[in-house]
């Protein structure tokens, strides 16, 4: 899996490409934790090019969300394929995690 990190003012955007499973989730966990250590408070995870997610990936998203909220930060997920979004719904994560259709929607949500 490839992770491309960019900045939009004070918002860190992580664009995921490929498959997020037990093999690849440690690298995402490390990168997100590193960004938080560097002071990132507002994050967007862009799922547009993500083909696959398992519970190992869901765990990283949950852990990051909890850590960010403890430091008054925010996270928004965007641009999921419908079957990836369905996994978040089955897990019940959509009830506490904002999931929006596009990167522009995610940026708008964090700038309000």
């Amino acid at each position, binding site marked *: 899996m490839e992770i491309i990190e960019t900045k939009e003012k004070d918002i860190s955007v992580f664009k995921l490409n490929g498959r997020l*499973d037990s093999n690849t989730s440690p690298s995402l966990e490390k990168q997100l934790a590193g960004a938080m250590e560097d002071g990132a408070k507002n994050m967007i995870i862009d799922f547009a090019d993500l083909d696959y997610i*398992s*519970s190992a990936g869901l765990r990283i998203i949950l852990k990051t969300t909890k850590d960010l909220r403890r430091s008054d930060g925010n996270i928004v997920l965007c641009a999921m394929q419908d079957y990836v979004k369905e996994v978040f719904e089955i897990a019940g994560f959509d009830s506490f995690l904002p999931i929006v259709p596009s990167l522009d929607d995610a940026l708008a949500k964090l700038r309000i």
Partner: protein
Amino acid sequence: MNPMVCCKTSFKLKNNLSELDTLCRNLQQFGNSLGLTKKCIFQINLALDELFTNIISYGYPDSADHWINIAISHENGTLIIRIEDTGVPFDPDSVKTPELIDKIEDCRVGGLGIHLIKKLMDEIVYERCGNKNILTLKKNIETFYDELTT
């Protein structure tokens, strides 16, 4: 794809996380040969990933190599998936899965994988035969054929 056509495949995976890529390749090849949608192949991959990851994480107290056998057949619009391993006895039905979660504070990661398997599959049957765990999963795929191939 004619739903009456019967197709099958089988393969084995070593108890190593790197085999998740082999699992993915095999399922994609089999799914494409049946003309299944990307969504259907994804859901089968996810259920088997969760089971496989569970088996290799908790199934073997030693550090030796072990094989996990997977056989998939397609009969009358239903996929029948059989997973055999020689790990410690484990019935996924014995795992307490989360209730409906609406607050992040209530969200626990334990049991999440098994919860996903139960939601993605239509039937799960566990048997312990000798030193083997045998799990049979069934998924109705009649609504999952690729429109281009029907």
